[in-house]
Every structure is written in structure tokens, then in C-alpha cells.
């Protein structure tokens, strides 16, 4: 059976890409398998773990439940697009300082989620951070340090 593919134009981290894709290809698979942007992780692939969190038009979403074709015309930001001119994003720096990971597999999703969480204004207390970061699972259980990193980055952003 011949596969029907469609041209998909994607704006990833400010760069425009044109891919020829089967319509069923998710944004996650397009990023990882076609564009080599493997920072975005595939965890459960069913929208339950948050490892694939990216920003679409500035909002955090799950790349595993987004078709690449749906992202056409939207601005996509991945973990690779956070640092500016070799300088870590403040949330990335806070995760390093607070040792907010163990194996690191969930970390790109945690960081993308944290950046959005702070921007949304949902990082006002530890309780609020836990609630609004609940879409990102960490199998190593590094949650207390994740909360500390988000708290630190939120305080820095406010000052």
C-alpha cells in the first residue's frame, strides 16, 4: 500500500521546516525522527506523563497528542529553543542549581512545563507549583527538587 504524504510546514524554535509526512505523524515523532530534535522525550505516548511537553504559540501542550499537521501555522518551541546565545534559560539554570533531576529523562518536559507554569502565574506557592506541575511525572521521584527549582526561577522572574 502506498502511503499518502502531505507537505507540512513547521516553525520550530524560529526556524521554518518543510516535511513530507503521513497525516498521522505526531508533532513528537516529527521533532524526534525527522528533525533530529531529540530533546523532547517520548514517555507514555498517550498524554499521561508530560515528557513530550513543548510550547505551541507560547502555551504548554503535549507533542504526542498533537498531529504535526495541526501545528502548521503555529510557533513551536522545544527544549532546544530555550537557551539564548549559549546562556541557559533561568529555569534550566535553576534545575541545575537545585539538582532537580536524577535520570533526566523527564527533565526537558519538566522544564518546558515550568517555564509555562511561571509565565501563567501559577507558581505562587509550593502547593500551586505542585498542582500546576502535576502533568509531568518523574519516575525517579525528584519532585521536591523540581518544586524548589520552579520556586527559585519564579522568584528570580518576579524580582
Amino acid at each position, binding site marked *: 500500500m502506498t502511503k499518502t504524504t*502531505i507537505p507540512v510546514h513547521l516553525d520550530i524554535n524560529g526556524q521554518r521546516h518543510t516535511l513530507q509526512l503521513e*497525516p*498521522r505523524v505526531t508533532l513528537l515523532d516529527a521533532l524526534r525522527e525527522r528533525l533530529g530534535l531529540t530533546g523532547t522525550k517520548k514517555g507514555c505516548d498517550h498524554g499521561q506523563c508530560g515528557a513530550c511537553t513543548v510550547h505551541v504559540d507560547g502555551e504548554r501542550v*503535549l507533542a504526542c497528542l498533537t*498531529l504535526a499537521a495541526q501545528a502548521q501555522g503555529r510557533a513551536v518551541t522545544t527544549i532546544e529553543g530555550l537557551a539564548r546565545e549559549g546562556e541557559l534559560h533561568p529555569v534550566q539554570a535553576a534545575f541545575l542549581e537545585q539538582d532537580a533531576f536524577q535520570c533526566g529523562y523527564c527533565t526537558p518536559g519538566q522544564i518546558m512545563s515550568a517555564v509555562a507554569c511561571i509565565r*501563567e502565574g501559577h507558581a505562587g506557592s509550593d502547593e500551586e507549583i505542585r498542582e500546576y506541575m502535576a*502533568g509531568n511525572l518523574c519516575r525517579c521521584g525528584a519532585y521536591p527538587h523540581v518544586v524548589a527549582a520552579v520556586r527559585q526561577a519564579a522568584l528570580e522572574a518576579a524580582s
Partner: protein
Amino acid sequence: MRDFSYLRATTPDAARQAAALPGAMLLAGGTTLIDLAKCGVAEPETLVDITHLKGLDRIEVDERGAAIGALARMGHVADHADIKSRFPAVSEALWQAASAQIRNMATIGGNLMQRTRCPYFRDPSNFSACNKRQPGSGCSAIGGVTRGHAVLGTSEACIAMYPGDLATALVAFDAIVHLRRAPGLGRRFFPAARHHAGQGTRDRTRRDDHRHRDPRLRRRAEFHVSENPRPAVL
């Protein structure tokens, strides 16, 4: 996931017409549909992407009530200042559901149309019997691991639970669902409570389960693209 063709709708009427074709389904936030396509439960031939339609995501609150567009996303409704102050149960039902990422994707129309999270329903390769997937095939959940299944409103055909929180709040507020129909047919309204009536039939989650067979019920699916929200959804 079986492949499908992808269509991006440019107007609500174009979406409605495309969705009426055999094997076609409307795609909004995708948090249910893409997931179920990966599970092999949904096997659409065509997905009609309605997320780029303009004007269907409005949230309007005035002294008469609130109107929420079918494409308004859960997170936006949850955070809307007037929804929070006037309809706190709606805001709370939304922000306490799912995750921030899902709430940024999932639409209100899709939320009302979401399918049950019954693990037997979601696993056709291991459990062929499911009256929701295949009416008359039986229920694998009955006699299986039933923790987390429904206690009220069950039947011998199905014990699946309604997966959402929003519908409960909408029913409490006597919300009205507005459907967009073909030109000339006018608008169609019905109470949210009717959409989710727990009648103990094959499918308690949605009453339009046989929409591919019954043209009268098929119209119900159209409220995916409903909504120029006027007379008050709440």
C-alpha cells in the same frame, strides 16, 4: 495508529459537511481522539481539523449567564475571571481536571464528547467484548477488575464511568448545549443533562454512540462545530 487523511476546515459549515462523510471525524484538541486512535479504538478515515476555525473559542459572560464556544479550551475557561467569580463550580471542575498541558489543548466541545476511560474499552486487542465499541458484543469489564468503574447508573450492558468533571457542573447549572446544523434546519438546543443522561443503555457516556447508523442521532455529533455562542450555554 491507522493512517488517515487530514483536512483543515476553513469554515464551520465546511467542517460540518466534511464530518458528515463516511469515516470522517472532527479533530479538535485531540486529547481523546489521537489517544484512542493509538489504542486502535478510533479508526477514522479522515480527520477534519477544526482547531483553526475563528470565533468558536469565545467566552462571554453577562447578567443573563455565560456562553462558551465549543472550541474554547479548558484552561482558558478555567482561568476566565468572570467564569471564576460567577460560575466557580465550572472553573474548579476544569482546573482540577487532567493536567495543565491537556487543559491547554482540550476544548469544551470535545470535553462533553470525550469517551470513557474504561481500560477494557481502551484495549480492543486484549478485550474484544465491549458494547461501547461494538454494540451487542458484551462487556469485558463486568466480572473483571471493576475498581474505578461506575456505581450508579450501570446496566447489564456497561459499567463504564463518565470520565469528566465539567458535565456535572454544567448539569447543576441547567446548561444548554447549542448545536450547529445545516443551513435551513435552524438551531437545535437541548439541556446538557440530556446529553449525559445515565439511562443504563449500552453507552452511558454519550447517547449518540450509534450515530453512524442512526441519522437522527448523528446530528448530535455536530455540536463539535457548534457555537457562535449566543443565548447562553450556561
